[in-house]
């Protein structure tokens, strides 16, 4: 063997990497390049692809549906801060030395574990306007005057939930709250809270600080790296969200009210065979994710205390 030790290690390195790298190349790297090329083409899968320059992107810019569905996506993302506040609140409640806390943690975590087609079906049934759980409870347990007032105010009461233009998005957001509030984010916050040194609170107690001040001056700054991390991840997920809900629960309706960008891409690519156009939207989505993450790093970084 004339190979030096260094060469042997390098060869071993390539060999260890090889299986994963081949998969990475074939199913990730090359597809990224192909989809970029595709976004400048028109292709229906049956006739040969045709290069059309930036046509897809100009089309996209004038596509009223695209803008509407982008707004839908952003609207659904308004739930992110609410969910995060919920997670932080729960984490703070659970960060006390209390008996049985593990049981509660398990229960809270459950929805995020099972989230998927099964729970979407479940919520579709719960949102059933006539026999679903939510409207059954509202109809029977709200006081008469409230019921009448809401009926006069909203026109329909209880609302038709997923079948109503105005209520479909809030319904999905409520389901999202149930899914995420006790999940990964809460565990992350819990870990962050356990890392806050107790003497900070003791010092604050001596200075006579109240709960509110202790929260804003100690807890909130101390968990800000976690807030930043969760917000970034939620942003990335939020831009790409809404696909499964649309397929299982609403079909993107009523009248497009719950169609998000990811569902729009699915329709163009896999329902209408607009491969080039779909790839163009996917790249615009990527650009949005990238920009938002970057802005978040640039401006969010300032309020984070490490």
């Amino acid at each position, binding site marked *: 063997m004339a190979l030096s030790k260094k060469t042997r*290690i*390098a060869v071993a*390195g390539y060999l*260890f*990497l090889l*299986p*994963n790298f*081949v*998969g*990475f190349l074939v*199913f*990730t*790297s*090359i*597809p*990224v390049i*192909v*989809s970029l090329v*595709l976004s400048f083409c028109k292709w229906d899968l049956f006739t040969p692809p045709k290069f059309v320059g930036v046509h897809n992107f100009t089309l996209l810019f004038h596509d009223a549906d695209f803008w509407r569905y982008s707004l839908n996506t952003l609207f659904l993302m308004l739930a992110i801060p609410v969910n995060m506040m919920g997670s932080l609140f*729960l984490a703070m*409640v659970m960060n*006390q030395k*209390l008996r049985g806390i593990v049981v*509660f943690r*398990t*229960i*809270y*975590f*459950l929805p995020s*574990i*099972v989230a*998927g*087609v*099964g*729970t979407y*079906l*479940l*919520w579709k*049934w719960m949102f059933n306007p006539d*026999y679903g759980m939510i409207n*059954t409870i509202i109809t*029977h347990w709200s006081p008469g005057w409230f019921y009448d007032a809401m009926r006069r105010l909203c026109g329909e009461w209880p609302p038709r939930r997923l079948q109503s233009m105005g209520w479909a998005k809030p319904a999905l957001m409520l389901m999202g709250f*149930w899914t995420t509030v*006790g999940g*990964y984010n809460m*565990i*992350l916050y819990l870990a962050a809270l356990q890392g806050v040194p107790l003497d900070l609170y003791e010092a604050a107690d001596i200075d006579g600080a109240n709960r509110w001040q202790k929260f804003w001056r100690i807890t909130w700054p101390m968990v800000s790296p976690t807030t930043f*991390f969760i917000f970034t991840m939620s942003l*990335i997920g939020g*831009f*790409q969200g809404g696909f*499964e809900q649309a397929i299982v629960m609403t079909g993107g309706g009523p009248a497009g009210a719950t169609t998000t960008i990811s569902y729009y891409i699915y329709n163009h*690519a*896999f329902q209408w065979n607009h491969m080039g156009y*779909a*790839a163009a*939207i*996917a790249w615009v989505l*990527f650009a949005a*994710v990238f920009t938002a993450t970057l802005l978040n790093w640039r401006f969010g970084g300032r309020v984070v205390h490490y």
Partner: protein
Amino acid sequence: MTNARTSACKTVTYLVLGFVGLFMLLPFFWMLATSLKPADEVFTSFDNPVKAFVPRRVHTENYGQVYAATSAMGGGFARWYINSILVAVVVTLGQVTTSACAAYAFARLKFPGRDKLFLSYLGTMMIPGAVTMIPNFILMRKITEWLGATAPAVDWMQMRQVMLFGHVYDVGRLAGFDSYFALIVPVMFSAYGTFMLRQFFMSIPRDLEEAATIDGCGLFRIFTRIILPLSRPALATLIIFTFMGNWQSFYWPLIMVSQDSMKTLPLGLLTFMGLYSTQWTLLMAGSLMMIVPMIIVFVVGQKWFISGIQLGALKG
């Protein structure tokens, strides 16, 4: 603080915890209650909502009916269960094995271009799934043609069947749409798993490996005898995450599979929903059967779950 005040505080905390717990569990109760009702009982109104949670007569037949109603659909629920288990297990094994090998290379072995390659792995983690999904879909569509051109002796479009214990089962094509190949191979490689394990391997002290090298241990033996055993917590976490993610996987199977016998549980449930759109008792029984394995995996592996989440974030 006085004792009375602390105990009042405790009571309030438990009230909050209990209320939130109820909010989390109520949908599951509703699911269970519906799945145990006779078909027509879900469409009656109640004067008291509590009654809506208690079936008048426990009707467990729904669960058997889910199997019976779908059995004509390429084997139905039982088959979808098997497909889901098969796909999730094989993908998990593949992902964890290839990720561990690659992570070892990235963490411990020096070779030209290593850090640039690792950066490119990291970079792709931010790219939306939709970007790569489209070319991969096209690849799976074309692959049968390409294989047919290179190996014309094999009929790549043929839907295969196997004989097992005296029964004939559809097992789809060898590759391309409606094949186990398409369900498994393209998702078997994970940049995230590589990243996570690499971070963990980096935290293992090098002394043991140096001692082993002096004793004449080769790199492969170091990997299997030292690195892997020391990484059990990280590996357990990755296995649980990957398995659960694949059990729920929906988008990729949806565009790969149209034949009933090749569907995984989420797809099967969707098909079932299309045919029995108002049979909520059956739909809820089916959903419940789909999520119960996940609840079991979660309760058993909870320790790894919680520590894994924290590992991913703190080191990431």
